[in-house]
């Protein structure tokens, strides 16, 4: 079998080999596509921060656009301003003094897709969107 293939291969010309090569590359790309996709979308660069606050348009910050020194956003709310701190590997919220429980601040840094930070008194929600590296659709918590 292998010998026959070798004989056929020897009879091919350069043009044939180019076409066979192209076909192999395309076929291989088709097989590897799901794995390449996982690899591509699973990188932190594909994560984005979504900031939802009362009466304002949703803000979307791609993690890939955050400079190495990080980025800070001030978000106004009925009981004071929140500070949303975004770094390349995560995001956290600093609550205003008037927030009684400061749950959002206690949540700390979030780093995985689907993780959320919520401040009920200010109706602020911050979450990360992207593909989970463990292939999870969500976490029960």
């Amino acid at each position, binding site marked *: 079998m292998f010998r026959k293939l070798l004989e056929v291969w020897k009879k091919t010309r350069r043009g044939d080999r180019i076409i066979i090569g192209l076909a192999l590359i395309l076929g291989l790309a088709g097989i590897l596509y799901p794995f390449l996709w996982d690899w591509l979308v699973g990188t932190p660069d594909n994560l984005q921060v979504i900031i939802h606050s009362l009466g304002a348009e949703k803000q979307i910050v791609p993690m890939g656009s955050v400079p190495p020194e990080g980025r800070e956003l001030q978000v106004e709310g009925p009981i004071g301003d929140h500070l949303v701190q975004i770094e390349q590997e995560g995001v956290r919220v600093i609550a205003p003094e008037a927030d009684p429980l400061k749950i959002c601040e206690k949540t700390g840094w979030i780093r995985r897709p689907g993780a959320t930070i919520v401040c009920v008194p200010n109706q602020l929600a911050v979450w990360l969107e992207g593909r989970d590296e463990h292939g999870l*659709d969500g976490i029960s918590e």
Partner: protein
Amino acid sequence: MNWQERIKKIDKKRWLAGMAAVLIIAGALAVQLSGNERVAGERIQETRFFMDTVVSMQVLAEDPEAKAEQAFAAMKDLSDRADRFYSGSEIYRINEKAGQGPVEVDEDIFAIIQKGKEVGEKTGGLFTIAIAPLMDLWGFGKGMEPGKPAQEDIEEVLPLLDLEGITLYPDRNAVEIEEGMQLDLGGIAKGAVVDRGIEVLEELGVAAAFINAGGDIRVFGLKEDGTPWRIGVRDPRREDRGHLQDYVIEADTGSVVTSGDYERFFMEDGERFHHILDPRTGYPASGLRSVTVIGESCVEADILSTAAFMMGEEALDFLENYSDYEGLIINEDEEILTTSNFK
């Protein structure tokens, strides 16, 4: 020899055969790339903020955006009507009329209250929808300042948490509560709202869906690649809010709900007080870090996880009594224990 001359040397038949091969492979590749749509429509994810939490939904269907929108609208409507802090809600009306006779409500709100009372009674009152006075006393109500209340104040409100004080009139969807009582559907509404969202999506004929309302999750169907939904369970021991690596749940139907002591709490005099209050003592329940319940109905899983949280390690025996539900608990020694058929 330049490129054009080389091409001329390749005979026509070979060219045709080669191009046909490339086209066949490219076609197969295109089919694979667009496979999602071919199988069962497109899967989308939408996220909203209501019920004071982040609600995310994945829908696999034809025209999934419109279907997700309808489900979100039904969920938001139900959550508004179940919110005791919203003056236009039916629960607000019931609480306002405490001790003044029955109040008629919509069928779906009545069904939630009925479910809360029935399952709450089965838990021996460990889950009570009449928890509002105690929640307010601790300052866990919306916009309140949290703090440890005086013992005499706690003792004063404990009788008001008894489910016996709620009378239901199923013939006319009416609810009556005794004077001083206040209903709070916070421990049940999220589950009920998730169930409603799934119900709407099933009615709309979507192929598969996933709804996550602040950690209360319900799914149905398989994803476009034929795989089940993958759900992690929060590991309360991890500061990064990660999941238990060895307990990933794969499901094509059902709910996963977790109650934990890590979400809402405050510190006072070096002591930590969380928001899951035991109606027997009036204090935050102790003994467990979290309880996860798996079963079909999200609302029942919600009730069972809250009730089980009060029980310490007896929670496992309690959950074993519910043949349709399985549970996983993490105790204060950070051990993981599961019911016999948990998987």
